[in-house]
């Protein structure tokens, strides 16, 4: 069974972070009604030249599985229509700048008035409160504000912008918070407003280093290095732009690596006798490993290393991931059909359930307004005449 079957979400979210949250929940069985308008299309129905993309995506990962209805929220009748959907939902999710939902007449108090136990999720860059709450932001800005960007990078280089993974981890965190709120509602009968701040999610992912700084310890960008393990890094492999990631966890893994490199002499070299010695001689080790790795095929070497007990993996490109048998077996990569029937790879929900074999993506991106018969007709019980009138008034638009 799909565990969240029966939960309905009125989804006002846009861009990535909020939509990824509801996308995950939809794959687990929630019915997600994406509320959109021709007046204000979601970013992924539009071209985005800053990404070098001049046309809209044909399949949008974060919109898949959702139901689509059109509502023009600039009209009072549109807001009233949105409230009717909320009244029939368990959750209302949004990711506008703080204050926008209130101005639309769709703030938490407004929604409680139509559905007393509604759980409202707000995802924003800096949270619903505080002096920066009005700040506009996207994924790389969340990473910058939260310290994750500052703590990522080569030791002698600049900070690094964290891309879509930042948005999507915000979405996955929001899904956890939303599920917690639903459990609270089940136990208490009470809804709640859940406020997820993207920059705080970024900070939470380096909470250990923030704690170190709070104690007066020094933090720095350390590239691919590790404070305890050496060798630990991404090493050149045979071929153009091919790389092998490996991490030597302990003395046994070090001995195993020496075996795979056919350098048993190094295993007994006192310079590398224990973890602390290997950290002291990190640069020498990196150079030795690079010398060896440059002559081996990355995937074959990773397999050999794992067999010997060393944590290793090729630094995989996207085509390698899309074709991988392990990820396909797990449903982490699935095939979805385009409208013309061609199959393409998509990412599934990142968990397997022993009693939930049917979780995952069932449909691709909905066409704008594709599910209005079901949502307006079946859920809201709206007659044809009323729908036509709302269309004529550009409320359903």
């Amino acid at each position: 069974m799909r565990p969240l079957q029966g939960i309905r979400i009125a989804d006002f979210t846009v861009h990535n972070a909020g939509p990824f949250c509801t996308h995950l929940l939809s794959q687990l069985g929630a019915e997600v009604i994406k509320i959109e308008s021709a007046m204000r299309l979601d970013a992924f129905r539009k071209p985005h030249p800053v990404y070098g993309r001049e046309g809209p995506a044909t399949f949008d990962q974060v919109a898949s599985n959702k139901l689509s209805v059109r509502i023009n929220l600039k009209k009072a009748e549109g807001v009233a229509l949105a409230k009717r959907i909320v009244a029939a939902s368990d959750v209302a999710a949004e990711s506008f700048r703080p204050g926008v939902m209130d101005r639309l007449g769709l703030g938490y108090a407004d929604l409680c008035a139509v559905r007393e136990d509604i759980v409202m999720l707000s995802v924003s860059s800096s949270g619903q409160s505080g002096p920066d709450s009005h700040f506009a932001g996207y994924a790389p800005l969340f990473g910058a504000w939260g310290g994750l960007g500052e703590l990522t990078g080569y030791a002698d280089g600049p900070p690094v912008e964290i891309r879509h993974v930042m948005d999507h981890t915000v979405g996955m965190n929001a899904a956890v918070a939303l599920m917690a709120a639903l459990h609270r509602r089940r136990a208490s009968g009470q809804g709640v407003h859940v406020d997820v701040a993207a920059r705080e999610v970024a900070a939470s992912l380096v909470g250990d280093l923030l704690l170190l700084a709070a104690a007066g310890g020094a933090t720095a960008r350390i590239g691919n290095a590790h404070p305890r393990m050496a060798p630990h890094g991404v090493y050149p492999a045979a071929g153009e732009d091919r790389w092998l990631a490996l991490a030597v966890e302990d003395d046994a893994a070090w001995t195993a690596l020496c075996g795979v490199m056919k350098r048993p002499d190094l295993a007994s070299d006192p310079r590398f006798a224990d973890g602390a010695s290997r950290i002291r001689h990190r640069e020498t080790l990196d150079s030795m490993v690079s010398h060896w790795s440059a002559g081996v095929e990355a995937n074959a070497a990773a397999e050999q290393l794992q067999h010997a007990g060393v944590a290793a993996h090729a630094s995989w490109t996207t085509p390698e991931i899309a074709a991988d048998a392990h990820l396909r077996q797990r449903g982490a990569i699935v095939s979805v059909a385009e409208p013309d029937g061609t199959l393409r790879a998509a990412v599934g929900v990142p968990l397997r359930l022993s009693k939930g074999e049917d979780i995952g993506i069932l449909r691709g991106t909905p066409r704008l307004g594709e599910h209005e018969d079901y949502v307006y007709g079946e859920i809201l019980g709206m007659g044809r005449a009323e729908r036509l009138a709302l269309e004529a008034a550009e409320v359903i638009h």
Partner: protein
Amino acid sequence: MPGQEDQAPLAGIRIVAIAQGVASAYAARLLATMGARVLLVEPAGGSPLRREPPFLPGPSGEETEVSALFAYLAAGVDSAVIDLASSSGREALDQHLAEADIFFDDTPPGERAAVALDEAGIAARFPRLLHVSVLPFGAQGDKAGWKGADLIVQHAGGEGNLLPNGLAVEMFPGRAPLKIGGHFGEMQGGIAAALGALSALWARPEAGGQAVDISSQDAMLAVGAFAIQRLGDGSVEHRVERSFRYGGVIPCADGHLELLTLEQRQWDGLVRLLGSPDWATDPALASSIERGRRGPEINRHIREWASVRRVDDIVAEGQKLGVPLARYKSPAEILSGEQEAHRGLFQSIDMGGAGLLDVLVSPFHFGGAALSLRSGPPALAGMLEVTP
């Protein structure tokens, strides 16, 4: 919600966790912060996470034995030392599991049966338990036994190969690809585990207990989903080509800022922020497609302009004009940030030998209030004695 633990969202939920690594520990931590009671089951000598450097300096600057990572991950949880190699230890664990709703476990798959933690055995003994396996490559599939570390799952999940972008890859185009700092990949496994646990718990009234199989590789791949989407659109992303055409990491006189303008009005605001220079008011640049094409030229101008200005001045002025800009903040700046203080992001709490320290609580607010941690990390207790 200080003093209102019973109103925390997950009040009443009981969790047992075995956590040798970050992912399992982070799953438990996320749920503990929202009110669940978590018991961390540790071997004699403690979880390996207790030995993970860096260690926190004490109040006088001396190094303590308190791992920053363990202190962060285990804040708010209880601990019991249980030797699973002994039958009395296994019985003690079973007593805890009998009262638990959720069990997070990262014991390597090949070692589970020997300590009675195999999926079938757990399902038979605890039919209402949500048994969440948290491993680098999952409990099922060809690579189920493979070892991982944060670096490994980031590169097996795809994002590792796609970083760095922008300024860093411009400066060092031939270098090895780069992982995200900290334990980003393992933490994605933890977040997915928390989601899996709460979803399965939701279904428990109908479905009963079940096994949840989490792979940090899967979770890392999920948050990197757009690369797969782009592949389907016919484009293979690469860290060099993936850089934003303009904007990105901008060096300033006293640090770095991030600039990203996706909407026309944001570009218009940027032009005003720059003082509407001739190059920026070129009518051709009114087209976003042309701006994309001339990105390197635009960035040369922006960087030259920013190089003699202070980050905070640019950000303050730019945000007023609706330009998305952010300072690359250091940990110290975050710890002393007004926004963070207002939000109650940090809580001062006793970190064992390292004294009273500010620790990040949670990125979530419920009902307009910050959450709170009930304690710092647990001290390592002696071996739990169980009378047979």
